[in-house]
């Protein structure tokens, strides 16, 4: 019993439609539905509902809906219902509040205030259904000068690159934070699409080595599941320095989730807490980072590009400049709206900066320093649609990472309860009966549909701009205009206001 804490949601059942089939009861891992044998009718327990919509979706007669409770404290602009509720929870437990998925606060979204350009009269738009549109992308160092041998033949001196059919990848989500079937869906979809998914810090399950050429393997501060075969298995190796949802802190997979195959893949004792420290204990400077970058390069026989992933924080441009000089081939920046399987609420909601601003300032800084071609730039942190994706590329990104969007395609309804471990959609859980609810056949199909739809939209918008290759869109900020922004916001983003 949570003292003073009233249920946030109410289960509304249309008694005229309910046939008491008990599907809702069987499908709710939170036990928010029950059956009363005496009356032969269903009951709802509002206090257990997390609003994940599993029951609503599966109800065969559409008899259910979940509504936000109208029950309220005396209205107070300073002390919102949520603020009071969180305070009560902390007074009850004495603990740090935990949250999942991305920052839900109504902070400014710059993607929503950026508009795209299109061709009219003087430069004709292109019809992507009739003319070729190139979306192929290579990530890695591009600054190597062309060299020719004695016979004039080109010397192949290009450092390793990640080849993608379009500038999009699934970002890091560990096996442990998400289920085996969620990983299988991502791996199969990435392979079919010719893009990459990312193992996160939980290692790579032995069954997924066959998707290696479409896998990015991650090395994080806990060093879970890392061995030579793992480093050699992927298309690239990513060093995770930070995560947008929780910059400055590490990770914690509770012992009850770190069991069986998850623990085995992580190479940790079964049932032990898997704790990733906040820092890499061997990295306290760019020079230290350089050592790890080159250790990994050498271990992988100089055949894999190295990604360094950082969270978007205040001085991100200077940090990115340092990373570019560390020998890394790709830098990944994660904005403050990026998702997580569990993070302290205050950190998720208040630490970091928007990816739009971080991306623009990093791209600008690297150009000013003449090192932009030394490194590819990948951004993530709530790329919600093809529009966000296109705007990010025009702001200077070589590619984008998506994760929340990918999970939504798998069935996630953003109830933000991943940290409880009872995901009714079989995504953020390790309970076998829940994991089987996500059939990777369906999951992979839906991911492929989503990404292909976005690719079509990218081509449509590029065509409208009169651009036939994503290379010509990259960093093309002339294609962007701001609306309702201050001079300072426009300056950081490096774009003009609409109308000018």
């Amino acid at each position: 019993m949570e003292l003073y804490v009233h249920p946030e949601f109410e289960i509304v059942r249309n008694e005229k439609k309910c046939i008491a089939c008990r599907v809702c009861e069987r499908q709710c891992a939170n036990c928010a539905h029950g059956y009363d044998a005496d009356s032969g009718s269903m009951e709802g327990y509002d206090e257990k509902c997390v609003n994940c919509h599993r029951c609503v979706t599966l109800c065969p007669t559409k008899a259910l809906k979940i509504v936000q409770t109208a029950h309220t404290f005396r209205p107070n602009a300073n002390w919102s219902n949520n603020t009071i509720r969180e305070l009560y929870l902390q007074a009850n437990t004495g603990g740090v509040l935990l949250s999942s998925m991305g920052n839900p606060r109504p902070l400014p979204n710059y993607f929503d205030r950026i508009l795209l350009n299109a061709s009219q009269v003087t430069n004709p738009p292109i019809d992507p259904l009739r003319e070729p549109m190139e979306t192929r992308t290579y990530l890695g160092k591009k600054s190597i000068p062309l060299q020719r041998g004695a016979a004039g033949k080109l010397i192949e001196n290009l450092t390793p690159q990640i080849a993608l059919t379009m500038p999009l990848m699934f970002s890091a989500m560990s096996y442990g934070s998400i289920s085996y079937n969620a990983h299988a869906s991502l791996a199969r979809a990435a392979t079919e699409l010719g893009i990459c998914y990312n193992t996160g810090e939980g290692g790579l399950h032995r069954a997924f080595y066959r998707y290696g050429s479409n896998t990015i393997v991650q090395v994080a501060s806990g060093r879970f599941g890392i061995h030579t075969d793992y480093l050699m298995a992927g298309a690239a190796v990513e060093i995770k320095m930070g995560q947008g949802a929780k910059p400055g802190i590490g990770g914690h997979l509770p012992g009850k989730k770190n069991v069986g195959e998850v623990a085995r893949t992580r190479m940790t004792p079964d049932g032990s807490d898997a704790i990733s420290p906040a820092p890499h204990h061997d990295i306290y400077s760019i020079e230290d980072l350089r050592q790890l970058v080159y250790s990994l390069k050498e271990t992988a026989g100089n055949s894999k590009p190295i990604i360094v992933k950082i969270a978007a924080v205040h001085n991100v441009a200077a940090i990115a400049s340092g990373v570019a000089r560390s020998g890394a081939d790709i830098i990944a920046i994660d904005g403050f709206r990026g998702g997580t399987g569990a993070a302290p609420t205050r950190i998720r909601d208040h630490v970091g900066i928007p990816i739009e601003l971080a991306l623009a300032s990093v791209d600008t800084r690297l150009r000013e320093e003449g090192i932009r071609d030394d490194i590819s730039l990948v951004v993530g942190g709530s790329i919600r649609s093809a529009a966000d994706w296109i705007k990010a590329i025009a702001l200077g990104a070589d590619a984008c990472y998506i994760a929340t969007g990918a999970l939504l395609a798998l069935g996630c309804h953003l109830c933000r309860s991943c940290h409880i471990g009872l995901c009714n959609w079989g995504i953020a859980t390790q309970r076998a009966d829940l994991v089987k609810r996500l059939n990777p056949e369906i999951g992979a199909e839906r991911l492929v549909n989503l990404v292909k739809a976005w690719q079509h939209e990218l081509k449509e918008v590029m065509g409208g701009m009169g651009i036939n290759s994503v290379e010509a869109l990259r960093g093309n900020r002339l294609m962007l205009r701001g609306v309702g922004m201050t001079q300072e916001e426009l300056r950081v983003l490096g774009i003009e206001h609409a109308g000018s």
Partner: protein
Amino acid sequence: MRKIFVREEWCLGCHLCEYHCANANLGNGDMAKALKGRRINPRITVEDDGRICFAVSCRHCTEPDCKKSCISGAISVVDGVVQVDQDKCVGCYTCILACPYGTIQPNAEGHVVQKCELCLQNGCEPACVSHCPNRAIIYEQEGVSA
């Protein structure tokens, strides 16, 4: 011919197949109207012991024991589909005893038997297949997958 196959690996034990089966055999109308306050008598049933669950319906055997056991000639195989002619059935339930899978059951009134006939008589794809939320029930050529 296509048959219904069940993949235990993906069965959630939600029992939706049973309700959609019942509704399809009651005319495929509004489910709330058709099934409200009624006890369903579906032709597919979910076996569930708390650890393993899977749906079971007629396997449409090539040499069906039910057909051999039928004393009134009510059971026949038409294009591979095992069918019951309820006008000929005398309700002796011998087929129910003979079926090794337990997939024949008395109809709602109990005078004759009923069984899965792949929704051919309902004019739709098998309702259990099209409404399974996890593709645990599939309608495929024998030997294709599963």
